[in-house]
């Protein structure tokens, strides 16, 4: 049972991780919680669904379209809302509120134009589970886990080892000065939103395959937010670790104590960690030097 629950936890954590990555990426650059991230994932899931079920494209092409589509939507968010707020030099809280507004807008846009129905992907990938002794592992879980690990490793390399990474870290620290050093801020921000949006799209498609597609499915991104705080805001690695901590924690509390108190334990652990490490497990805290 313990091992089965661990498997369950890792599987849920994987989904959270996928959502948390894009979320952390944007946080690291613009310093705000993009509450619309989950809804971009939701739109990605719908795009993929419509491609597969209505247009009858092959799955791989549909998934790709979903990734790109979500990326483009994410860029549009930045272009139409966030960029203007950034230019106004408004506090970062404004970005977060705008994201919340976008989240409400997207969810209801789907309800109005596509209907509030629940939808399921046709079985393009086997949903079967393999048994290892008494342990059952979903094929889809293995597939999504592999995707998560590969995508994360590439991203980690991108951020720590390339000029792209240096540019976004510099920009996140001080945009005006970064542009004074020759960094094309708008370009890199667009790139980051594309990347984050595509991650969200991938997450959306995976969520759709595993569960169902519906307008509120993006609300899991709240877990991504919590995961990022666990790991240290803005740290992609931290967000991933945090995602798995939450996934496993939730499953263990649900499995061994009671689901009714699940959130209590999750937040209890969160506060406990923050009391010891005020900026999360991997967050760097540059003290405000007087």
């Amino acid at each position, binding site marked *: *049972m313990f091992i*089965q*629950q661990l498997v*369950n*936890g890792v*599987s*849920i954590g994987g*989904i959270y991780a996928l959502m948390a990555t894009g979320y952390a990426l944007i946080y690291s650059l613009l310093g705000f919680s993009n509450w619309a991230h989950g809804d971009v994932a939701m739109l990605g899931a719908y795009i993929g669904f419509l491609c597969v079920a209505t247009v009858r494209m092959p799955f791989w092409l549909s998934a790709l379209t979903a990734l790109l589509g979500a990326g483009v939507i994410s860029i549009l968010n930045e272009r139409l809302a966030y960029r203007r707020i950034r230019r106004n030099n408004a506090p970062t809280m404004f970005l977060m509120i705008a994201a919340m507004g976008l989240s409400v807008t997207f*969810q*209801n846009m789907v*309800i109005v134009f596509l*209907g*509030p*129905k*629940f939808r*399921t992907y046709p079985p393009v990938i086997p*949903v*079967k*589970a393999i*048994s290892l002794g008494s342990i*059952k592992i*979903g094929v889809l879980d293995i597939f999504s886990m592999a995707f998560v690990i590969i995508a994360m490793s590439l991203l980690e390399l991108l951020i720590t080892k390339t000029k792209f990474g240096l540019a976004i870290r510099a920009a996140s620290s001080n945009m005006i000065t970064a542009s004074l050093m020759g960094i094309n801020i708008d370009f890199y921000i667009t790139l980051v939103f594309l990347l984050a949006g595509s991650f969200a799209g991938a997450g959306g498609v995976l*969520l759709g395959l*595993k*569960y*169902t597609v*519906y*307008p*509120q*499915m993006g*609300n*899991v991104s709240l877990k991504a937010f919590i995961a990022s705080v666990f790991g240290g805001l803005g740290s992609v690695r931290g967000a991933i670790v945090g995602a798995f901590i939450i996934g496993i924690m*939730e*499953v*263990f509390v*649900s*499995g061994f104590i*009671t*689901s*009714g108190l*699940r959130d209590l334990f999750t937040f209890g652990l969160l506060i406990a960690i923050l009391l010891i490490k005020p900026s999360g497990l991997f967050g760097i805290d540059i003290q405000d030097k007087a």
Partner: protein
Amino acid sequence: GSNQAKEDVIKIGYVGALSGDTAVWGQAGLNGMKLTAKEINEKGGILGKKVEVIGLDGRGNPVDSVNAFNKLVDEEKVIAVIGTNFSSCNIAMAPIADQKKIPLIGTACSNPKVTVDENGKLHPYSFRIGFIDPFQGKVLATFATKELKAKTAAIITDIGSDYSTGLTEFFIKQFEQNGGKVLIKVDAHSGDNDFRAQLSKIAPLNPDVVLVPWIYKDVALIANQARELGIKATLLGGDGWDSKELLSMAGPALEGCYYTSQPSFANPATKPYAEAYKKEFGINPETEALFGHDGLYWIKDALERAGKVDPTALKDALENTKDFKGLMGSITVDPATHNPTKPCSVYQIKSSQFEYVGDFTP
């Protein structure tokens, strides 16, 4: 009051979730009513007057629903309101319906407190079409022990839902009274989508039946995940299962499982209505559409019995309903509780179709 006896339209309100995460039901209910109103008007209306349906959004939220109810009564001057499918919304609206003396007919809201308050006092203006949790819980438990010969049961409950917790409570009571044993009750939250942590606890206990008192979207997920984890037990559920969507979402995983509901789209009598609905709106109807249909006809029936368009007269006529025949079965109102007494239908899923098994009373 006699809001509008003189006007030549009869305005009936509908409160339901027209936006937000539960809009599936609210929109279906309103559509259903509009379709029905059209039908009634084509056949000459009620007491020679045309029916007009006014739907307002209550978001499935008690506060919004109360505001919507107030607006329907105070601004739109409706003489009765149908809705909602959420007990929480109706419990909040019931005292106001009493204050304003406007009948309120709940649809799938199943908490006893919708019509009878904390202290057992009747809300005179509050009615409902669907049945109450204790009733459905009892039927399910009795069906499990008597028909399925189940000795052991497990339950997975949506702890955030009054519907799910209510059904669970009364199922346990009856199941144990019938000599069965509830091996485990696990909690989960809707919106979680992944129930494997909870189901993994059920799997090794091998219960005969598993009660899944959820809404069909979650039922589909729970069923699929339960099978994935090797749970072979028969799954049981209530009227939350009642949607064609369930078949495509979980078909094989639910093969041979049962649920209780009102007579609904699995009932051949509803076929013409379902087709008309599909023709009009281009989508399959949800059960809430049938509630809208029956609610409106019920009001027609009562008004015609009362012989005049007046909310209080309507209330009295509703209270004295005997054997009103709707698409969801016949309704006879118990004047002490305003709950309809009607049999509960049991359906089975067989080769990915709903199959009517029979009517049961506990």
